[in-house]
């Protein structure tokens, strides 16, 4: 991500420049008396909530943990401003409720079991094949329809374009007819 790294640096300096108050106001009190208690941030990203597409500036620690968010002054939509939801992003990223492991719930079970990715991917692919093969409709009235109506797909409007494109490609290759997401509802 060389390009974006250069972008980050550019954004970082632009952000500070934009935020500076007129010289008459800055330095009215000594900076040393009240040093910034955390970094403002230097990397630019986009808010994950509504469809305005506001720019967000993020500060992270060395482990990728978010320390601060504020509006990106260079983003033409919001020019540094943000409403309540994106300002809560640190709690989205750092929430103790975030899923950290693959979980599996067996038939008729009353609890989750922790699993690993290899197991889950393998088991899911078996389910997909079994269901598709048992119900696939290749022809209908003499027309090739290559369709499965027994597997459905829902989501997702918070995903990136590249996620969504791959999901469509994935679903249609399997013959999925019931393909829907938030845009319908």
């Amino acid at each position, binding site marked *: 991500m060389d390009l974006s790294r250069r972008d980050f640096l550019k954004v970082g300096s632009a952000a*500070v420049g934009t*935020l*500076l*108050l*007129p010289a*008459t*106001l*800055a*330095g*009215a*009190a*000594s*900076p040393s*008396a*009240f*040093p*910034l*208690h*955390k970094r*403002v941030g230097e990397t630019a990203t986009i808010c994950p909530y509504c469809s305005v597409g506001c720019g967000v500036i993020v500060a992270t620690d060395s482990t990728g943990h978010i320390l*601060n*968010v*504020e*509006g990106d002054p260079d983003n033409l939509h*919001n020019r*540094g*401003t*943000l*409403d*309540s939801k994106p*300002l*809560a992003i*640190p709690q989205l990223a750092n929430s103790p409720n975030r899923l950290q492991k693959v979980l599996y719930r067996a038939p008729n079970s009353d609890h989750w079991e922790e699993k690993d990715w290899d197991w889950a991917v393998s088991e899911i692919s078996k389910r997909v094949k079994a269901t598709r093969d048992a119900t696939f409709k290749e022809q209908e009235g003499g027309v090739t329809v290559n369709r499965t109506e027994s597997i459905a797909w829902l989501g997702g409007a918070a995903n990136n374009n590249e996620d969504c494109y791959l999901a469509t490609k994935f679903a249609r290759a399997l013959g999925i007819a019931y393909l829907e997401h938030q845009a319908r509802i």
Partner: protein
Amino acid sequence: MSSIAMLVDTSKCTACRGCQIACKQWWDLAATRTKQTGSYENPRDLSPETWSRVTFNEYEAGGKLQWLFLNLGCMHCTQAACVDVCPTGALQHNDTGFVSLDREQCNGCGYCVEACPFRIPRLDVVNTLTGEAKASKCTLCQDRVTNGLTPACVKTCPPGALQFGDRTAMLSVARKRVDTLKAQGVAQARTYGETELGGLGRLYVLTAPPTAYGLPEAPEYPALVNLWHNLAQPLGYAGAGLMTAGLAVNWLLTRRARLSNVEEK
């Protein structure tokens, strides 16, 4: 009087509460447990974890309904009773004229909590074992401002209802806005904070009477603080230990009793 000020133009506020969360975000203030009690307004009060919040008020006059939103936090009064009662100098008017808080110096006496005519500062128990407490309140992001940034709430405000800068300039923006609103038929448009308590560091443009927002029509400097200020302070902190303590405790008890009466109602 402060040389810089924050302007809250309630005629532009959409109550997105970016300011409320920006404050918590920048200062890493915890969320408190709240409950839906029939209002958009939550938390329902300031606290050690909430230094700034938006109030929601419905007001109907002349057949016209207004949903009034008010960003509330420290008013940074020129005649700041909290500064005057602070025995340690933790609360001070800084070089720019707004009221800074140095939590290192705060001894948790709570005088400021009682003295404030707007009920802004709160005591934050920092050690539950010893009961050690520190005052907490909006400092207008003293660290951001002294480092050339705008306060977190101002920076984030989408419609520009919150502005920040030279106080004279802010006043001029506010007055001009009031003129515009009046020309548009908002008869009750007015500024607030121009002269109240010697002039506030948080200025307002209101579109209804202050009381419709829950603001005192004419905030008053507490009389007892005046007394304390005039008698005790000239004697100096060191030499006035007993008298100071006596007066302050007396005043404190009276005030507490009055407050608890209010709560019981």
